[in-house]
C-alpha cells in the first residue's frame, strides 16, 4: 500500500468527518438543550435531500442555492415537530419519547416510499464529477462543498451559542432547566427554537448531500446510526465533541478500509463507541469540561 493511498484515505476521512459533523450537530443540540433523543433525525435529512432534489429537478436550482429554501422549510418542520409531538412527549417518561421519535422515523420512511417510490433519484451537474487535486490526492467537488459548508455552519453556530444572548439562554437551559426558568427564561420557547435549529441544520446538509450521493426513502438510515455514535463518542450535547467525534469516526473508518477489509472497516465506528463507553463513558469532550461528579 502506497503513501498516496494512505494520504487519500486520510483526506477522504476528514472530508467525510466534516459531513458527518454537519449531520450530527443538530442531533446533539436537541439532546443538549432538551434531553430528547430524536431517532427520526435521519428521516429529516432524507426530507431535506428530497427538498434539494425537487428544487434542482423542478426549479432548476443549484443545490447550494436550494439551501436557502430548504433551511426555512426544515426549521418550520422542526418547530412543527416540537409543537405537535415533542411538547406532549416531554411530559411522559423518556422511553415513551424514544418510542414517539422511532415511530415517526418509520412513518416518514413509508410516507416517502408512497410519495416518491423506492427508486434512486440523482442530481446530475457538471460539478458531479469535478475534483480538486491537492498534490497526488483529490477531493471530489460536491464533497468539498459539503465539507466547507459544514465548517462554516459549525463556526456560525459556535458564535451564536457563545456570543449572543440567544446562545446564553440556550446554554442556561441546557445546564439547568429549573434554574433558567427561575431566572425568567421561557423554557417552551427555548425548546421550540432548539428543535427548529436542530432540524434546520439539516436544511444545509440535505441539498448538498443529495448532490454527493442519491436520494431514496431509506437513505436517512445510512447516517442515523453513525450520527448517534458520533454524538455519544464526543459527549452527548457537546458541541466540540461532535466535531472531534465526527473526524475520529470519519478518519478511522476510511483508514481502516485501506488497512483491512470493507466489512471490518464498517465495524470500526462501533468498536470506537464501545471503547469510549468503557474508558470515558461521559464522552471525549463532555459538557462542562469533563469533571465527573
Amino acid at each position, binding site marked *: 500500500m*502506497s503513501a*498516496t*493511498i494512505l494520504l*487519500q*484515505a486520510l483526506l*477522504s476521512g476528514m*472530508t*467525510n468527518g466534516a*459531513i458527518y459533523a454537519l449531520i450530527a450537530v443538530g442531533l446533539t443540540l436537541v439532546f443538549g438543550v432538551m434531553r430528547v433523543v430524536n431517532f427520526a433525525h435521519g428521516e429529516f435529512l432524507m426530507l431535506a435531500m428530497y427538498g434539494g432534489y425537487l428544487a434542482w429537478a423542478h426549479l432548476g436550482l443549484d443545490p447550494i442555492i436550494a439551501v436557502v429554501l430548504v433551511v426555512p422549510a426544515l426549521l418550520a418542520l422542526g418547530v412543527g415537530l416540537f409543537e405537535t409531538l415533542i411538547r406532549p412527549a416531554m411530559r411522559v417518561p423518556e422511553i415513551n419519547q424514544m418510542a414517539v421519535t422511532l415511530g415517526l422515523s418509520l412513518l416518514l420512511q413509508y410516507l416517502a416510499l408512497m410519495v416518491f417510490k*423506492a*427508486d*434512486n*433519484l*440523482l442530481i*446530475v451537474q457538471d460539478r*458531479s*464529477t*469535478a*475534483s480538486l487535486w491537492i498534490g497526488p*490526492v*483529490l*477531493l*471530489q*467537488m460536491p*464533497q468539498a462543498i459539503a465539507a466547507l459548508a459544514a465548517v462554516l455552519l459549525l463556526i456560525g453556530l459556535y458564535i451564536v451559542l457563545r456570543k449572543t444572548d440567544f446562545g446564553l439562554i440556550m446554554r442556561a437551559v441546557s445546564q439547568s432547566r429549573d434554574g433558567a426558568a427561575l431566572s425568567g427564561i421561557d423554557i417552551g420557547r427555548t425548546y421550540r427554537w432548539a428543535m427548529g435549529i436542530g432540524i434546520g441544520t439539516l436544511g444545509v446538509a440535505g441539498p448538498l448531500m443529495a448532490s*454527493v*450521493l*442519491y436520494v*431514496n426513502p431509506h437513505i436517512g438510515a*445510512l*447516517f442515523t446510526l453513525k450520527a448517534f455514535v458520533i454524538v455519544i463518542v464526543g459527549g452527548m450535547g457537546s458541541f466540540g465533541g461532535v466535531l472531534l467525534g465526527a473526524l475520529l469516526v470519519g478518519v478511522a473508518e*476510511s483508514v481502516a*478500509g*485501506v488497512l483491512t*477489509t*470493507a*466489512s471490518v*472497516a*464498517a465495524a470500526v465506528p462501533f468498536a470506537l463507541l464501545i471503547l469510549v463507553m468503557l474508558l470515558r463513558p461521559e464522552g471525549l469532550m463532555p459538557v462542562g469540561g469533563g469533571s465527573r461528579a
Partner: protein
Amino acid sequence: MTGINRREALLLGGAAVTAPGLFSLGAQAQGSTLRIGVLVPLTGVHASDGARMLKAHQLAAKMINESGGLKGLGGAKVELVVSDIQSKPEVSRSEAERLISRENVSALTGAWASATTIPAAQVSDRNRTPFMITSAVTDAITEQGLKYVFRTAVKAKWFGKYVADFMDTMKKNGMTIDKVALATEDGPAGQAVHANYSSVMPGRGYPIIADETFRTGSPDFSTVATKLRTSGATAILSVAYADDSTVLLRALAAQSFRPLYIGFGGAHVNQTVAASGKPAERTFGVVEWAPDLKKPASEAFVKAFAEAYPGEVPLSNQAQAFAATYALALAADAAASTDRTKIRDALRTLRITDGPASLLPAPELYFDEQGQSPATCVVVQVIDGKFVTVWPDAVAAQPPAPLQG
C-alpha cells in the same frame, strides 16, 4: 350471526369439495386443462420482484390460450395456480407440497431467489413433479442429479466465462486489456461472483492485480477509486447495487479514470445508473436478457408485454419467467399428456429454436440431463444514457461504441 357464518362455511366447504370433481369431469369432456403451479413471492422483502415475475407468467399463459391452447391436448388451456411464498424458504417448501398434493398441478415454476427455490426443488423432485426454475442462479441446483428439476436461468459460475469471452472480443477489436481489477460489494451476491471471477480470469489471460471490496451504502468511494486507478488496471469488473454503482462511477470519473468497466446483473443494468450521465456513459453490464435484443421472439415479447401492461418495459428475469411457462406448456403439448413424468420426459427432448419461447439470447432452448438450459448472457453498454445490447454479435442491437465518446 354465527349460524349464518357456519352455514356459509359449510356451503363453501361443500362447493370446494365437489367443484374440483365437477370441473375435472367437464374438463375431460373437452380435453383437459394443464394446471401449472406458480411459486412467487407476493409479500415480504421480494414482493415487488414476485409481482413482476407473475406478470410474465400470466402473459405467457394468456398468449398460449389466445392462440388456441395446446393442440396435442385437444386445445387444452393453460391454468396457472398462483401461490404466494411470502419470500420465505419454509413457505416455498410447504406451498410446493400443497400445489402438488392438493391442487394436483402437472408442473411447478418459480420461485425467484435461490433461497426460496432450493427447498421447492427438493419437494418437487421427491414428488416426481417437473419444476421449471426461472431465476435462481446457485450452481448446485442443476448439479445434484435431481431428476425433475429444470432451469431457464444461467449458472452463477458461467458469468466469468461470458465476461472473459466479451473481453476477448474487445481485445480483438484493438482494445488493450491486460490487467483486471475487481470491485465487489461485501455481501453474498458480490462475494459469490467475486469467487467466480477470481477463479476464471487469470486462466483466461486476465491477471487480477487489484481486489477491492466495499460495503453496500458507502457514502464515499474516493479511496476505492484511488486504489483502482493507481493499480494500473485496464479493466474493472464490479458487482454493486445501483446506489453504489452510481457513487463509484462518479468517483472514478472525478479521477478521470475511465477504463473498460463491466457491472454485474440486473442490479447494475438499472435505469438509475444510466441516468447518472457522463460517469456511466460507455460503461458495460453483463445480464441474462435485455429488451432491445435483436431476435424476433424477444421483440414480439416486448411488444406483447407493453400491450398487456401499458408503459412497462420487461426486465431480464421476466423474460426467463415467460420462457419457463412456455417451455412447460410446449412439453405437455409434445407429450400430449398432463402426466407429470410424461411432461418431464418431453422436457428432456424438447428443442426450441423459434416461436415465443425462443426469446432468450441462446440460439436454442433445451435442457440437458441435469435439467440445465444452455442459457447465455448478453453485454449491454450505456450509449447516450440508455442501455443498449452490444454483444454477442448475433443478438446485438449495435456494435460496442468506443469508451471515449
